């Protein structure tokens, strides 16, 4: 009889705990939803996310969402603390995203590559696409940041070939052609750089400042200054029209500015 009572009590406690746990998870989701009604990084948003974490620390979403305003506002240690917690809970979902953050917001190319590689290990035989782009594309950029042209070109080739084979060349992210062209250009292989840049210009109807700028640079190296001048003029028009490579929040890799274009134009004009 006494044993039966003990069993009943244990069952009751287990049920109570389970029910509390379930209630907390639901309440946590409610706080998470409430946080999303407020602008990112506001007092109400942050407090609701903290409440969601307090109620259910196993859910990665409030951890990650808490980290983002600090990423965008230049407060790295708070971003890092919360982003790492999200990855501890769901690395498959967020490790690539952290790599993307390391790449753009901290220019820590080695840590970015380590995260992209770790994601490959978690999902073997599958090419992940954190933030909408293949890890190979991101790795190509990260290696370019390290001036490791061999690896940068390898990953851009891999990304472009796969995309071309599966969906068609016109589906390739156009900056893939641009960055691969830059990698070839900086690696002093102008012919391959031009091939890639021409692809970029083909798919942007010749209206992309970066493409025309690099084309002008290559033509200048070939002492074809008249032709180079034509392309730098187009680049200047493209830039004024807003057709150039840039990113929200942070400067992009090898970002060009109007003064770069004007400087090249001045140099080419003097050579005439």
């Amino acid at each position, binding site marked *: 009889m006494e044993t039966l009572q003990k069993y009943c009590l244990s069952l009751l406690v287990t049920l109570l705990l389970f029910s509390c746990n379930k209630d907390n998870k639901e309440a946590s989701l409610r706080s998470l939803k409430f946080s999303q009604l407020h602008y990112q990084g506001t007092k109400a948003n*942050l407090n609701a996310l903290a409440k969601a974490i307090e109620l259910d620390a196993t859910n990665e979403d409030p951890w990650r969402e808490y980290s983002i305003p600090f990423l965008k506002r230049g407060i790295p240690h708070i971003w890092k603390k919360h982003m790492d917690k999200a990855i501890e809970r769901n690395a498959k979902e967020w490790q690539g995203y952290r790599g993307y953050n390391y790449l753009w917001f901290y220019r820590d190319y080695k840590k970015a590559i380590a995260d992209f590689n770790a994601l490959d290990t978690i999902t073997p035989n599958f090419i992940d696409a954190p933030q909408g782009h293949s890890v190979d594309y991101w790795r190509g950029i990260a290696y370019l940041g390290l001036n490791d042209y061999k690896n940068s070109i390898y990953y851009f080739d891999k990304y472009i070939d796969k995309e071309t084979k599966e969906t068609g060349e016109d589906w390739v992210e156009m900056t893939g052609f641009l960055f691969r062209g830059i990698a070839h250009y900086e690696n002093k292989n102008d012919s391959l750089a031009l091939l890639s840049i021409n692809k970029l210009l083909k798919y942007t109807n010749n209206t992309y400042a970066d493409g025309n700028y690099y084309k002008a640079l290559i033509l200048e190296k070939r002492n074809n200054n008249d032709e180079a001048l034509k392309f730098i003029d187009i680049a200047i028009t493209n830039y004024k029209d807003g057709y150039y490579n840039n990113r929200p929040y942070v400067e992009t890799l090898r970002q060009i500015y109007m003064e770069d274009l004007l400087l090249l134009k001045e140099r080419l004009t003097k050579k005439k």
Partner: protein
Amino acid sequence: MNKKKILKITSWVFGVLILVVLCFYAYYNYLLKHQHLPSEGAVNHPADYINPEKALLNEGFEVCNEQFICQYYNPERATYSEGKNGLRNFVLSNYKNNSYTDSGYLNIRFVINCKGEAGRYIIHENNLDLEPQVFNKDLVSQLFKITSKLKKWNPNYVRDEYRDSYIYISYRIENGNITEILP
């Protein structure tokens, strides 16, 4: 239907509507102040807040609207008057690595007011793993002086008006050398 009856019905409708709005407001206030507030460590300010009393070079610096300081990236970007290249050239040509061995991120956050003036600075020091650390005092002082000499900024433009905005400059430093200036 006589006028008196119409007035009575209208009053009732308005009364009920006001009651509903009040109830909604009270409920929302409850959600904000109680249900979705953590039991410990609730914040009293948004993520970007810089306390004017603790900030550097805040004396004489005025924001145009204390209640609405937006972000540098929204919507048209607050930028340095000489552009990113101008900013980079100014910093790099003035900074000298006095045999520092420090590595990490030295982030300086501040406010650009609606007139394009900079002030209210705060400094965050982290190592390359983004954990808090203390940099060489001379390095911090030198970079802070250089940063605060970046005087002319293009203020953010939101809803047909120039506005105040929070901004930051992040210096990635490796062995005392600046390797990146972000964002």
